[in-house]
């Protein structure tokens, strides 16, 4: 049996709601083993695109392929290999966490397996609240239960729409660890949309950035960040001499000293070691050199 490398292929996806073009010619590919970041400001078309991948929304144009096959409403069986949490984690609040998962397992035609239900509850840290009614859960607990239900049928592809919403810092770390476990130890492919860009930077290996329904950029996170400018925070024994040296060597740069006596400027990623070497060779003692290359800065730059 051939194993497909591309689990999700979107080609020229389009969706129009009335006069609003929510998604306009969106194409991307998610490969097996990816943690694929889906980035974009609110209303950029991320959720609509994810819903089109899952067949919740019918595209006006374009095509989605899941596991190499065209995904449409007739091909719903493909969803047996997908686990998804879309937007808010809504459940039957009058039922317990365990009962909710039992029902969802039955919808997926899975055999009755309480051990599996307890296993996934354990993975998200809700084992001891299995019998509690969902109406007693905090937003963070519902979020974790939402992730648990995606794992029930042991899918190859997991799609999580804003999975970190409502989580406290410890919860965020736990979910981040869980995502790594799912990806690296269990071989799951993940698509994650999140507005917490720092988390995406930590977790995703590839990403697509969408704004106003259009793809701005797609590729490996590291490569994309490398191609962007980095922010340098520099502390030396002689700030004035440092600024003069940098300006002489790189006239296009604009180093400035802040109130903390730090020198701050932006430059290309590959210039960082050269600047450091030049300063040291000129007799300047470099106490601190931070090259901040954040996805947030990158995101703001390209969506501006």
């Amino acid at each position: 049996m051939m194993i497909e490398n591309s689990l999700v292929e979107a080609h020229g996806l389009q969706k129009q709601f009335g006069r609003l073009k929510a998604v306009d010619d969106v194409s991307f590919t998610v490969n097996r083993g990816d943690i694929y970041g889906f980035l974009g400001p609110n209303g950029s078309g991320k959720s609509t695109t994810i819903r089109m991948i899952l067949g919740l929304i019918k595209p006006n144009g374009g095509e989605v392929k899941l596991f190499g096959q065209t995904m449409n409403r007739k091909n719903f069986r493909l969803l047996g290999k997908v686990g998804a949490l879309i937007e808010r984690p809504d459940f039957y609040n009058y039922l317990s966490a365990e009962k909710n998962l039992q029902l969802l397992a039955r919808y997926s035609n899975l055999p009755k397996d309480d051990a599996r239900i307890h296993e996934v509850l354990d993975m998200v840290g809700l084992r001891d609240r299995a019998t509690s009614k969902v109406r007693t859960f905090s937003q963070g607990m519902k979020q974790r239960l939402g992730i648990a239900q995606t794992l029930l049928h042991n899918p190859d592809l997991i799609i999580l729409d804003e999975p970190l919403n409502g989580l406290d810092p410890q919860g965020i770390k736990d979910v981040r660890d869980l995502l790594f476990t799912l990806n690296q130890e269990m071989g799951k492919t993940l698509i994650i949309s999140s507005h917490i860009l720092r988390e995406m930077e930590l977790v995703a290996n590839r990403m697509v950035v969408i704004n106003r329904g259009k793809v701005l950029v797609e590729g490996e996170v590291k490569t994309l960040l490398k191609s962007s400018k980095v922010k340098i925070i520099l502390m030396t024994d002689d700030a004035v001499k440092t600024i003069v040296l940098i300006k002489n060597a790189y006239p296009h740069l604009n180093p400035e000293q802040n109130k903390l006596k730090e020198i701050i400027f932006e430059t290309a990623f590959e210039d960082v070691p050269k600047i450091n070497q030049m300063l040291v060779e000129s007799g300047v003692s470099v106490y601190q050199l931070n090259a901040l290359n954040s996805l947030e800065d990158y995101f703001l730059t390209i969506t501006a």
Partner: protein
Amino acid sequence: MTNLIRIEFTKLFRRGMTYIGFAAILLIVLVIQLGMFVEGKKLLDFLIKSLSDVFVLEGNLINIYTVSYVILNSLWIHIPILVAIVAGDLVSGEAGRGTFRLLITRPVSRTKLLTAKYITAQVYTAMLVLFLVFMSLIVGRLFFASGDMIVLMETINIFDSTDVLWRFMAAYGYGMVSMWVVSGLAFLFSTNATNSLGPVVASMSVLILFTIITNFSIGIFDPIKPFLFTTYLNGWQLFFAEPLDWKSISTAIGIMIGHITVFYLAALYIFKHKDIQS
């Protein structure tokens, strides 16, 4: 499909709202039975005052059948609301709660999912009507004896006690079909709504509007009256006429089954083509 229907029933009967219909029927029937038990004779004397001047009426006319006939009259007034509350929530409730996203992202066909919900709505409706049968004919037997029954329609019909029970069963069966029409209508509205109140209000509005048109003696509405389901809702009374008008009964049932089918097919079409955005 059986699995999906079971799931729907598990969800349905874990909700308090589901039992409102049963509680309301329990109350309606008990109130009517209590009223008839205490004041029934006075009421009947008033109703048949003119008859007693002409006929000699002997025995107990306030019996289980007379009371059940009064209860049956509530069928097309109260039960439609109770039916619509649940049928109108089956699809829209999932959209309102956001749980549709959980269901539609499972490997389940939309046709099967909706059909399971439609069957659930109709079985629930049947259960309500059967509960009405239980309350009126079985629980009622604890308070009232059996006996002959007088029905005043266009003519006076007096039925022997041995000739009544099957008529009630047939009337309740007919009533069940008519409530399936109301349930189907509420379900149809439910497929295109994101809250439960809308389908209930919409189906009740249609019911009221069609009832007004049905009862209006204005010529311009006459051509459409045979096609309105409200024309047939109180057709259960046909089983308490002599001779029985089987042609009218079968036509009425046929038209109501037509409505039930059309409502299902329309709901299915909407649901299959619907974008799940909630």
